[in-house]
């Protein structure tokens, strides 16, 4: 392999895009300013599946949606080059696939059609208002898995290693390892160890996707990827075509190296919709019979999905809508008390129609409080972000989650507006609160309350302890007109286990039905769209 082939070029490009992807991923973290300085959600902006399904479900498009037209145009021109040359999950699948030494199996006859069925199902459900594409979208899937599982696990492993060397306190070794650790902290490691509910599960799912490469290389890309399916549909009209000249002696070498189910071996069978334009068939052909060129050669081997299949997928996707919506949790005033959404989140129905569960907001959340929902919002809300104040509160001066959301499910609010958004209200549990229940002074909730006029106020009272002794202390109260439900009080409450002050969705700005007060002297909260 001395001469530089197109395959080499492709691998270099894949490496560069993976590096860019990882770089932007690492930059999805605060450095103390309220801007990140990098377009960290760039890959998601280019994703036409996310733009299309979000538009179908919510009838809205977000800021940089037009970038996805570039990918559509590129695919119309050159086919699924995104899959073969750009997609970070595709590249990771390539890497994982290299662990499989055996030649590829003969492709199952219709397996490649599965992804089209998934795509049709996802489009159908989004058409009727349920946005599920993010669960399977490869970019969303990868960012979510990295954010919530792989990166935290990597951080944990590396930190544990350096901690062990630090504790051993070895001469010469520990100073070097500490210097290296400091360097890693500045570059690759997160500022603090992230902890995510379901991290283990989400990580296992992703490793499962990679492990499928042992069954068949690029199993995900061939059979499951709905973005690949969408780009495959567009590729049918691509002007980049593959031709096979008369020199072909049907040796079948190309069939063994094809990364997808594009059937390169037969002269008439090549499927443009499946071809990842990886150029393996061109490079390996001993007779140099394969050519990729613009508008030369036959257009396509066709893509017959079968009307029944398409109809079945469509109805399955459509039926998912009522099936998911019969949960009471999706109804106003019946929702989970702890379904605290990030500041700027749309009203719940609209939020669910827009959120693609990419995990960007959870990755960027400065306190780590944004966590993936399990069933708090019903199955429809799986992996959407929920603020869990005990893990991390909403930082008063931070607007990062709204900045990184690719679909506007969390609106990007000016700081002043964000500071007035109520995520809910705090409420005190007098049975657990130290000054109320135990005649013991404590003002931590009041101390950490960030609103300029503190939403927690203290009443000076005299109480008696068990011995009958008078104790002068201050008892906290929540002022509903100033409390924004950020959860700083709940986070810092010294009562272990179930804290003595907790935030619930009561009063959250984004829902008319969830308002608590008839009249709000602080003026109307910013409307949730």
């Amino acid at each position: 392999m001395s001469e530089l082939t197109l395959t080499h070029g492709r691998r270099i490009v894949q490496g560069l895009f993976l590096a860019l992807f990882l770089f932007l991923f690492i930059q999805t973290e605060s450095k103390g300013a309220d801007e990140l300085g990098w377009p960290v959600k760039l890959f998601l902006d280019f994703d036409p599946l996310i733009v299309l399904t979000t538009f179908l479900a919510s009838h809205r498009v977000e800021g940089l949606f037009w970038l996805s037209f570039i990918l559509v145009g590129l695919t119309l021109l050159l086919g699924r080059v995104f899959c073969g040359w750009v997609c970070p999950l595709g590249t990771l699948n390539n890497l994982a696939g290299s662990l499989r030494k055996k030649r590829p199996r003969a492709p199952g006859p219709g397996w490649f059609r599965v992804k089209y069925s998934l795509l049709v199902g996802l489009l159908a459900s989004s058409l009727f208002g349920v946005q599920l594409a993010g669960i399977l979208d490869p970019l969303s899937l990868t960012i979510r898995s990295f954010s919530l599982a792989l990166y935290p696990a990597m951080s944990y492993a590396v930190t544990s290693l350096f901690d062990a060397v630090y504790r051993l306190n070895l001469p010469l070794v520990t100073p070097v390892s500490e210097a290296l650790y400091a360097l890693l902290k500045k570059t690759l490691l997160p500022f603090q160890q992230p902890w995510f509910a379901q991290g283990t599960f989400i990580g296992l799912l992703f490793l499962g996707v990679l492990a499928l490469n042992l069954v068949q290389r690029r199993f995900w890309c061939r059979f499951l990827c709905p973005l690949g399916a969408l780009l495959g549909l567009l590729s049918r009209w691509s002007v980049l075509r593959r031709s096979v000249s008369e020199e072909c002696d049907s040796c079948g070498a190309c069939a063994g190296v094809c990364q997808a189910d594009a059937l390169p071996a037969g002269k008439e069978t090549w499927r443009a919709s499946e071809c990842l334009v990886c150029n393996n068939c061109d490079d390996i052909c001993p007779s140099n019979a394969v050519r990729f060129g613009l508008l030369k050669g036959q257009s396509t081997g066709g893509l017959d999905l079968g009307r029944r299949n398409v109809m079945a997928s469509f109805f399955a996707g459509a039926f998912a809508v009522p099936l998911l919506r019969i949960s009471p949790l999706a109804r106003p005033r019946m929702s989970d008390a702890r379904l605290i959404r990030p500041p700027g989140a749309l009203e719940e129905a609209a939020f669910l129609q827009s959120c693609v569960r990419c995990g960007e907001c959870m990755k960027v959340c400065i306190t780590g409080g944004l966590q993936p929902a399990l069933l708090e919002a019903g199955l429809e809300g799986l992996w959407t972000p929920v603020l869990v104040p005990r893990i991390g509160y909403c930082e008063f001066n931070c607007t990062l989650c709204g900045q990184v959301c690719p679909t506007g499910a969390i609106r990007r609010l000016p700081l002043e507006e964000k500071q007035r958004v109520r995520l809910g209200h705090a409420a005190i549990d007098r049975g657990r609160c130290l000054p109320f229940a135990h005649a013991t002074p404590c003002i931590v909730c009041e101390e950490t309350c960030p609103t300029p006029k503190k939403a927690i106020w203290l009443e000076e009272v005299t109480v008696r302890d068990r011995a009958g002794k008078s104790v002068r202390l201050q008892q906290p109260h929540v002022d509903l007109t100033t409390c924004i439900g950020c959860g700083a009080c709940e986070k810092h409450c010294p009562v272990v286990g179930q804290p003595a002050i907790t935030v619930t969705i009561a009063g959250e700005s984004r829902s008319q039905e969830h308002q608590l007060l008839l009249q709000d002297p602080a003026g109307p909260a910013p409307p949730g769209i």
Partner: protein
Amino acid sequence: MKRRDFLKWTAVSSAGLALPGSLPVLGRIAQAARGPDLVVARGTPTPQVVRAALDALGGMKRFVARGDVVILKPNIGWDRNPQYAATTNPEVVGTLATLCFEAGAKKVRIFDNTVNDARRCYRQSGIADAAAAAGAEMVVMDGRKYRDVRINGTALKSWPLYGEIFEADKLINVPIAKTHSLSGLTLAMKNWMGVMGGVRFRVHQRLDESLADLCRVIKPTLTVLDAVRILTANGPTGGDLSDVKRLDTVVAGVDQVAVDAFGTTLFGMKPEDIGHVRLAAQAGLGVMDLSKLQIKRISV
């Protein structure tokens, strides 16, 4: 106690014993040679006020020797800009760092165990920039470096404290003056909560005693109280400019209890109004009786 100090002390006390009744006089003479107990400097610009305060106290060279590693401990607990007076004024911190370097310090390290996110606090307080401009290191505190310290106090028997403050050559406390709903005020002594590890919000149950207890084991070389802006309500977090009062004042001294005692007067209070100041003075950890202190007031 170093040998030289011991000899000096022995000389002074034997002189006192030799001349009964003259000890306070001699003490005052010895003190006058060292400089006043407290310097209260007022004016603008802030860096010059800080310099003047240190000069009046005998210069930074009195506290920092060539090659020293110095720790500056400002209050950076909250994610606020300097004008809200929730965090120590960055010019005060920056000028102190510069003065340390001028006195020959090898390294100046600055940190606080913040309540809000450290990245935001360091940056939004302006202290990260001030540190960088002065050539000081802004250190994110390392969870592994807290160690249990025997305190033997009335409320705290032992507590995890940040090891570096005991290892450094010199430790300078740079608090800001603010209100606090439980301790009344947060000044110098309360600023040591920023080197506490563990579940430090538990100490609020016996806060005054705990703060006095911290002063049993944390003995700063110098304390510089920032009262350029003070926060008069809604402390310690603030957030409303109408709660901020501009005093353009810096209070410097060696006795941290004395600094806090004077600090109470900035809010129209008396030292004994603040529980932890009273307790610390009673425990002999410093002087709160302002009439017994030599206070030098200067204007810039």
